[in-house]
């Protein structure tokens, strides 16, 4: 698979050099890359899902390491892993219907590999049911062992591979890969259309004569506002310019081009203006499992001001931005410092920058972080492609997209690295 390797390396380079801007683009490209990785993966006879998972993980780890701050990469890798598991599981359950009896014996063969108690076919079926279907009262009652069973889905997947030394195996293996690629395609589709899904909800949130404030530039926000505009709502937008990148200028330009009344304000005027604003709508870089937001720098300030004036603070986020991790000290650990040249002219300050004091350290430091962490208590609402959610609900939403296994495994392997 030389071509995949080349693709991976190319993408790695881009990530490392921060050539890819925006989590959507990153997510999409990651998904595309993983799709090609999957299609290139040679499928062994046994344990096909594990092989797929292994190869995806191997690439995924490198991608994540290349830009650990771009959480969308990790999110997509996890999503793809989840897809593989799910597809595998659904195939298994399909097979299970026919192979109910042989399952038990095969199970025992493989259990030594992962020291789990043997699973009955009923338990596997229950587990698969519970992951595939929304939880119903029946499954809840039925599945007391469910909590134990869910983490074992991978092993049960492996089991099913092992046991299926039957005639339909080759067709099944091809089917797995095919299904996974299908699903990844769907994921890519989702990522690229999440704007529209979010924008569709605009009319539910923007009323006539509303005054909206946003900071920096986000394509999601742009589409959201334009969708409301197309529905003949007339409203006014304050755009804070979002130093040091001044993407707000770009957004303001886009908005006026589409005929929206736009006022460009400086970031410093946010507090002054927010008392006249009805709603703050911003994009996010990533949404953490606790409902906290990693957002362009400056948004924590805006969120605090909004809270002070009881202005709703709404975050728009596509599902690829939902990160299953809980943040620890995210202001520093999930942040990235950009070049000081964006703030200070090197020409003017070069003498100060290497102005050595007695200890040899420069007297002047320049801090230019990229992201801010907005704690969940400052967020009023998340609007994702699946609808609006409270910050406190994000953990549950995230559980729909990721399997708990990947969460843990990913961590183990990254820490192992």
């Amino acid at each position, binding site marked *: 698979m030389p071509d995949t390797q080349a693709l991976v390396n190319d993408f790695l380079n881009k990530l490392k050099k921060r050539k890819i801007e925006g989590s959507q683009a990153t997510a999409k490209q990651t998904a595309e890359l993983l799709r090609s990785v999957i299609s290139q993966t040679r499928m062994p006879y046994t344990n096909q899902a594990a092989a797929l998972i292994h190869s995806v993980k191997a690439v995924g780890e490198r991608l994540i390491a290349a830009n650990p701050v771009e959480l969308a990469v990790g999110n997509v890798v996890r999503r793809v892993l989840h897809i593989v598991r799910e597809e595998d599981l659904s195939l298994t359950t399909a097979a299970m219907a026919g192979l109910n009896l042989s399952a038990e014996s095969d199970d025992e063969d493989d259990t030594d590999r992962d020291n789990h108690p043997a699973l009955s076919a009923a338990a596997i079926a229950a587990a698969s049911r519970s992951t595939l279907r929304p939880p119903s009262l029946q499954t809840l009652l039925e599945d007391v062992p469910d909590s134990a069973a869910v983490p074992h889905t991978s092993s049960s997947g492996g089991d099913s591979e092992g046991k299926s030394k039957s005639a339909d195996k080759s067709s099944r293996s091809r089917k797995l890969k095919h299904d996974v690629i299908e699903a990844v395609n769907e994921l890519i589709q989702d990522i690229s259309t999440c704007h529209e899904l979010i924008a569709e909800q605009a009319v539910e949130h923007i009323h006539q004569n509303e005054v909206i404030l946003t900071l920096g530039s986000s394509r999601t926000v742009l589409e959201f506002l334009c969708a409301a505009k197309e529905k003949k709502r007339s409203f006014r937008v304050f755009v804070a310019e979002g130093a040091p990148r001044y993407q707000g200028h770009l957004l303001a330009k886009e908005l006026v081009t589409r005929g929206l009344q736009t006022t460009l304000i400086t*970031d410093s005027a946010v507090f002054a203006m927010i008392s006249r604003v009805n709603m703050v709508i911003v994009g996010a870089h990533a949404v953490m499992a606790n409902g906290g937001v990693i957002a362009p720098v400056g948004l924590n*300030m805006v969120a605090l001001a909004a809270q002070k004036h009881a202005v709703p603070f709404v975050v728009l986020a596509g599902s690829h931005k939902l990160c299953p991790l809980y943040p620890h000290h995210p202001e520093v650990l999930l942040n990235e410092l950009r070049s000081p040249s964006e703030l200070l002219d090197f020409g003017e300050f070069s003498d100060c920058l290497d102005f050595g004091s007695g200890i040899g350290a420069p007297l002047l430091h320049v801090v230019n972080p990229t992201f801010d962490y907005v704690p969940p208590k400052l967020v009023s609402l998340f609007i994702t492609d699946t609808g609006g959610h409270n910050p406190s609900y994000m953990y549950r939403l995230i559980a729909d997209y990721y399997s708990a296994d990947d969460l843990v495994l990913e961590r183990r392997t990254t820490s192992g690295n």
Partner: protein
Amino acid sequence: MDARRMSRAVPRVRQVGFFTPNTPAKQPQPQSAAPCSESPPLSDSPASNSLSPVMIPPPRHLSDNLGGRTAAVPVPGRENSGELPTVGSYNPSESVLSLDSPPRSRIGDEELSEGAESSLGWYRRSDSAKFASSLPSGGFNLSTAKHPESVAAVEAKNPLPEQSEAQKEQASSSKPLKAKTTKAERRALQESQRAAKAASRAEANKSGTPGGAPSSKPMKQPPQKKDGPPVASSIAASERIGVDRSVEKERKKDLPPPRKQFDDESRGGRAKRRSVLNQPEARNRVELFRHLPPHKNGTQLPYLGSKFFELHEKHPAVYKVGLQYLAGDLSGGNARCIAMLQAFQEAIRDYSTPPEKTLTRDLTSKIGGFVSFLIECRPLSMSMGNAIRFLKSRIARLPLTLSESEAKTTLCSDIDRFINEKIVLADKVILRHAATKIRDGDVLLTYGSSCVVEMILLYAHELGKQFRVVVVNSHPMLEGQKLLRRLVVKGLSCTYTQLNAISYVMHKVTRVFLGASSIFSNGTVYSTVGTASVAMVAHAFRVPVLVCCEAYKFHERVQLDSICFNELGDPDAISKVPGRVDVNYLDNLTDKQKENLELLNLKYDATPSDYISVIVTDYGMIPPTSVPVIVRGYRKEYLLI
């Protein structure tokens, strides 16, 4: 506490029947017997007033206590307070001064004589305002000390309405002409009107009615109203009102008159007519801020130059300062205020009273004209408003006995004293106070560039304290970078960042030092835009916020938001980012795009008082809730010296 009670007591004492030229306080004092001979105004320092709980020796008694010292007087007191940088606002030495001279001591025989004398002085002053040269001063009012009150009370109401009528009249008469007449014609018309008015005034004066409208009460500048007339009227009014109503009246006087807004129609028309500068058309105006005058920038300089010779009576020094405001060369509340006062000083030196006029009246109107010109160039800051108020009250209080040259020297030294005490010395006191709050290992954050904060940082550095400074800046402002450079050159270790990253740096910060353009009496800090955000984030991170501000910048206005009153900066400054050629998204907009796009460049914002931990001022360190107390004491102090 004592001091406060005393101030209450004053009106009661007065009610006993002594002549009370002014409401509670110290109207007669400037003329009080002792200092009268030896340049009275100098003897009492504006810094000395017992009324505020943060003790300042009362001016009236300075002469008693300190033997009528001149300009240097306040300095010892100040030095004292500086040398014992008491953390609190209470300064024993000062309080002693204030205590041993309670107003009650005034009740006595001397009060009688003083009353008579002061009434003379007072009367002269008032008549200088109204009766001009026509009445033989003194003769009329010395006979009964109380008469003037009633007469004056009537009078007090007159001048302003009259004046505004006159203005209206003029406005209406010249408005229709505006379009058709040439400039020369208009001027001729104006001149004739003025002459006619002067004549009628002279007549009115002769007949003894208080008719004379303050002739040239600057018709120029409506916003100026805030600073000019209120003072004059309040002084005039309070001087005449009967004792019983004085308290009530004073309370009313406390209310700052509503500011004329830019969108006020009567104002708008007048302003446009007499504006020295081209008013940029309502291009790109932000809907929410139509009540504020648009920014004027240096590109109008040529136009201004062409109008130079029409700017009658503009003193070159004032003109220069105005241009500096316009071009943005002068910025910072203190710098602007000092430059303005010095320009006025020069103008006063070169001033000579025209025949048929009195110095007090004519000079006040002159100053009014200067001020309106300066406002044309850039809206006044609160501190400048206060300084102008001070100057006008000084002019109004000039004893008529002074010759012109004496009066001029007095005024000039008053101005010097104001600059020295209220700004220079106040800053020194502030730095000593603030330096006590800086410890080794601190990380201090400052926003923008405030000269007081800069002095504090340098002072603490000189004291050998080890700390780090975080300089925060935000886009259209470049002052932060200049401050950064000055600090680094002085050897302070600094961190530089921009406002958006404030949450990132705030974790490490232990103190936030902010400057202020003004502090309102509800504790709101009116300061460079962005200050509120910094204070808010600091508050959220539980970092103490110290606002450093001289007391002369305190103002009795109240304000809740940053929109009702503000100043607009150059909107075009937003679309360009110096040093960043890549930010050019707004360069080539079509007309249709421009139609929808508004650029807003606010200059100030209002920080709610709950974000402020302490205000460091020349009276000590006070909580924001104590601002009205200072404002109250301060107003009396500088109006009444």
